[in-house]
């Protein structure tokens, strides 16, 4: 049999899927044990129990100074910023994307500008941004918006352009005005695609959030990692990274569920 025709069975598939995770985990344990053998105070690869203790403290002990449970207050702060940033970004992109995609005048006006703007690396303008937007919540949210909106905008413009011309013509022959066509034909078809764009933007959004929190914040997951980096507290950093990864994963699943429940027609239409 050709290699490309060999399929693992159901159980084989499951075993294969978890194998890399198990291997990574085992490799970590081995490396950590080896380093602690050589130096019991090793900070680079903390043992599981060291991480557990650190996380227990972060999650279930009130912080002396602020009286908060740090893991949860950090998570709440970061997620709030993430959601605010992505919501604003989505809203702007949606309105701009649809208008630009539909109105030829706007398209000529804004497409080159948005294209040029999306080439500006947001991290390079970070020093400028913080000075302009201040260091309050606004600047963090703004960084997320600047980082994700140009992409979402361009994506939505493309998606609007992908609507078959026949559909728009058809809507016009049914008596629709520009505004009505936007409202009844384009907006409802773009909503599930906005969710797709949001899913693609989640990764960059986390990135910008972490960068922003590293520079100006008093709480947040990125702030904490940045703060304890000076002490090289890997026993906090590693669980935080895993936690962020898990959150990113949950966000992605949530968006996918929203998409399939709110827009039952979408999967079928896309596969046609």
């Amino acid at each position: 049999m050709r290699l490309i025709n060999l399929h693992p069975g159901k159980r084989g598939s499951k075993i294969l899927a978890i194998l890399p995770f198990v291997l990574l985990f085992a490799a970590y344990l081995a490396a950590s044990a080896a380093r602690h053998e050589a130096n019991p105070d090793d900070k680079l690869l903390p043992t599981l129990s060291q991480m557990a203790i650190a996380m227990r403290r972060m999650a279930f002990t009130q912080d002396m100074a602020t009286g908060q449970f740090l893991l949860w207050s950090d998570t709440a702060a970061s997620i709030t910023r993430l959601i605010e940033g992505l919501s604003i970004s989505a809203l702007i992109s949606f309105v701009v994307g649809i208008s630009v995609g539909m109105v030829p005048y706007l398209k000529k006006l804004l497409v080159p500008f948005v294209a040029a703007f999306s080439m500006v690396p947001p991290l390079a303008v970070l020093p400028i941004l913080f000075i302009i937007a201040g260091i309050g919540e606004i600047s963090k949210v703004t960084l997320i918006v600047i980082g994700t909106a140009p992409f979402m905008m361009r994506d939505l413009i493309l998606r609007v352009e992908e609507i078959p011309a026949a559909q728009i013509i058809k809507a016009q022959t049914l008596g629709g005005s520009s505004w009505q066509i936007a409202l009844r034909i384009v907006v409802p078809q773009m909503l599930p695609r906005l969710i797709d764009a949001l899913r693609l933007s989640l990764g960059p959004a986390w990135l910008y959030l972490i960068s922003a929190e590293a520079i100006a914040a008093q709480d947040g997951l990125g702030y904490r990692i940045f703060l304890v980096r000076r002490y090289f507290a890997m026993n906090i950093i590693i669980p935080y990274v895993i936690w962020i990864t898990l959150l990113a994963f949950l966000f992605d699943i949530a968006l996918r569920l929203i998409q399939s429940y709110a827009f039952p027609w979408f999967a079928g239409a896309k596969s046609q």
Partner: protein
Amino acid sequence: ATKKKFTLAWTVYVGWMPWPWAAQQGIVKKWADKYGIEIEVVQVSDYATSINQYTSGMFDALTITNMDTLAVPAVGGVDSTSIITGDYSNGNDAVILKGKTKFEDIKGQKINIVQYSVSQYLLDRGLQLHGMTERDVRLVNTSDADMAAAFLTPDVTAVVTWNPIVEQIDADKGAHNVFNSSQIPGEILDLVIVNSKTLDANPEFAKALCGIWYETLGIMLSDTPEAKKAQAEMGQLSGTDYAGFASQLKTTHLFSSPEKAADFTKGSQLIATMDHVRQFLFAWGMLGQGAASPNVVGIEFPSGHVLGDTKNVKFRFNAEYMAMTAAHQL
């Protein structure tokens, strides 16, 4: 009428941790209320950002070093007055070599350092004192947050950095602290500066800040359980614990009383220090483009002495408010 509102920005550093703690304890509000103003104490995680924002006019007051005050706000045309001389680094900043024990061994090495920071000033002074110049070494700009991790990698053999990172690195077996700020005492100063325009119009802001500062120092430096608790909480705020904070405090010379601070500020050593600093900045092109000499900016001292251009004074050391505190006139 609404109260006038002022902002003080701070960053995580052992000598500045009293500020957020005082805000949490209500000491800030107490003094602000006394002068009928509002004071907001704002944390910025990144020190350079805090300076840039102060310079572009977003804060009224800032915790900063003497060197950075000259290099950024003063050169940027923002007239600033230092009202509190809080501490000087007394071992907090250090040159650390891996596997070598003498400062002289630094020759030819690649040094990881936050360039254009007080670390570079320390390094320069060290090189000067040992008869070398920066041409004898190579600098690699490295973010302070990653210095500790960097030191663990084999290709990093020399670093210049500040606390708490110095302590992290000193704990390493191969690390040798070959030169530190305790060998140039009084040269790396941590100040509170206020925009001079704001200060002229609102001296009560400076009074309140001095009141807050010395009340807080009084609590944390006393030999009581409260002091220990205060230090532990400050430690926590900076991401460590009591022990960690206390050991950092050992290498920080806090001017525990306003008298001592005022005296130091009026003293002649400060003038000599600032001259070193401006020569250093000039040599590295940090006094602005087209600066023809170190004299382009004027630095005024409590005695009225001015270093540099008397027509362009942008950095003023003021001992008046510390003296008022000492005299219980607040």
